[in-house]
């Protein structure tokens, strides 16, 4: 779901950075309004590191294996720390593995981060008041799969329309639909895993589920 370097035109990549900067500014502002923002930083950081490590877990789905993104769950647990966390994760990925893209850091932050925030709000509003296992599982499933589908939507729209080649409307439409369709199984798997993790956390350590 990361757009690599070399594809997108400069206005789009710079626009991505601008959008992310604005989002980060807003999030940091909200974090700074808390009574003790410093107390939350180690929690946010350690969870981010855990998500990063967990994204290296692969699920064997024959014939291949899939790496999880868990951006929905990340949004749910980290809240306003989600976008900073995602940017940090993307930078580390680009620096450590050359995976992802540095000119496209901003735009990838938008692709993954904005849906993560959407997932956060959806889960929190959905489980407001009712925090039983069924509601938790249901909304976690929705959060997990929604985050992926929104990311895929943004990803495919950007990639297909901004690629430096003339594709024609029909080809573009087909490509977008194909990319989205191909990711539906992944979204369902991520939704299922997010639901299972949320249920696990509810049983074992509800504090984690309350987020940072």
């Amino acid at each position: 779901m990361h757009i690599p370097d070399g594809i997108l035109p400069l206005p789009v990549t710079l626009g991505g950075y601008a959008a992310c900067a604005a989002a980060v500014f807003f999030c940091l502002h909200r974090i700074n309004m808390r009574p003790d923002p410093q107390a939350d930083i180690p929690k946010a950081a350690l969870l981010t590191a855990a998500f990063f490590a967990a994204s290296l877990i692969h699920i064997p789905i024959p014939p291949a294996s899939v790496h999880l993104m868990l951006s929905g769950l990340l949004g749910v647990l980290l809240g306003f720390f989600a976008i900073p966390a995602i940017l940090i994760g993307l930078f580390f990925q680009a620096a450590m593995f050359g995976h992802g893209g540095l000119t496209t850091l901003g735009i990838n932050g938008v692709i993954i981060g904005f849906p993560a925030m959407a997932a956060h709000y959806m889960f929190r509003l959905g489980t407001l008041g009712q925090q039983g296992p069924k509601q938790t599982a249901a909304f976690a499933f929705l959060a997990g799969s929604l985050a992926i589908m929104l990311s895929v939507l943004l990803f495919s729209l950007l990639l297909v329309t901004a690629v430096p080649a003339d594709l024609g409307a029909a080809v573009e439409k087909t490509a977008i639909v194909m990319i989205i369709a191909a990711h539906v199984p992944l979204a369902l798997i991520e939704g299922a895993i997010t639901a299972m993790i949320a249920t696990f956390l509810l049983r074992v350590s509800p504090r984690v589920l309350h987020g940072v």
Partner: protein
Amino acid sequence: MSCRVTQPGSSVLHRMDPRFRLVGLFVLIFAFSFVSDFRLLAAMLAFTLILFFLSGLPARFILQKLKLPSLIILVLVLVLPFVSGQNILLDLGFISLKQEGLYASGLIAARFLCIITTVMIVLHTAPLLTHVQAMRAMGLPWIMADMALLVGRYLEVLGSDLKRMHTAMRLRGLNSSRPGLYVLRTRAWLCGSLLVRGLERADWVYRAMRLRGYGHSRAATSQFRATALDMAGLAAALMAAGTVMGLEIWLGL
């Protein structure tokens, strides 16, 4: 006492002030992403090669990093020649190889290669967390800087926690027969356990930080000192980027 962290390597690039190096990198790679004229592409590739020699990094290092090109790039490079453009170079019956598409493929591939090679070369001249400290020195908000430094510090710790838990699971039959949702559930529990451990550890880390005065003094000691050589290096990068972009605009007119 110099507080510079050094990696194996003593090239010009290694010795540059990390802040100037990062700014130069970003300016260059954005300039690269702007290029579409084939002559400038060739110049870009040549520049990248020169940078590689200047860095003193071994060839197999870069080749290793480039071993797995992005899947997306691969797909685009293979598909675009057949779906984009009007001028047909080769008619294969139901599909045809088009000139514009082929050019677009080459463009994407060249830009991608130059950018990630440059990124790999520059970022590997210092530990990751040095780059974060350089960004902090240049104004990265303290919340993000502190978070990034902690993420960098604890990534390996949590990675080894994960490995150990995974091994424990395998020793109790994780990979044997039971299919389907069971597979998903065990991975979910693994993730969940890692998150719980992460948060518990975070409590202790915060206590350790408070015990040693975290938040008590915001005195950010700048450990970086720029020299004339650093400024010259940055100036060179800016000039190269400016020239490339200027030429691109001029050639495109």
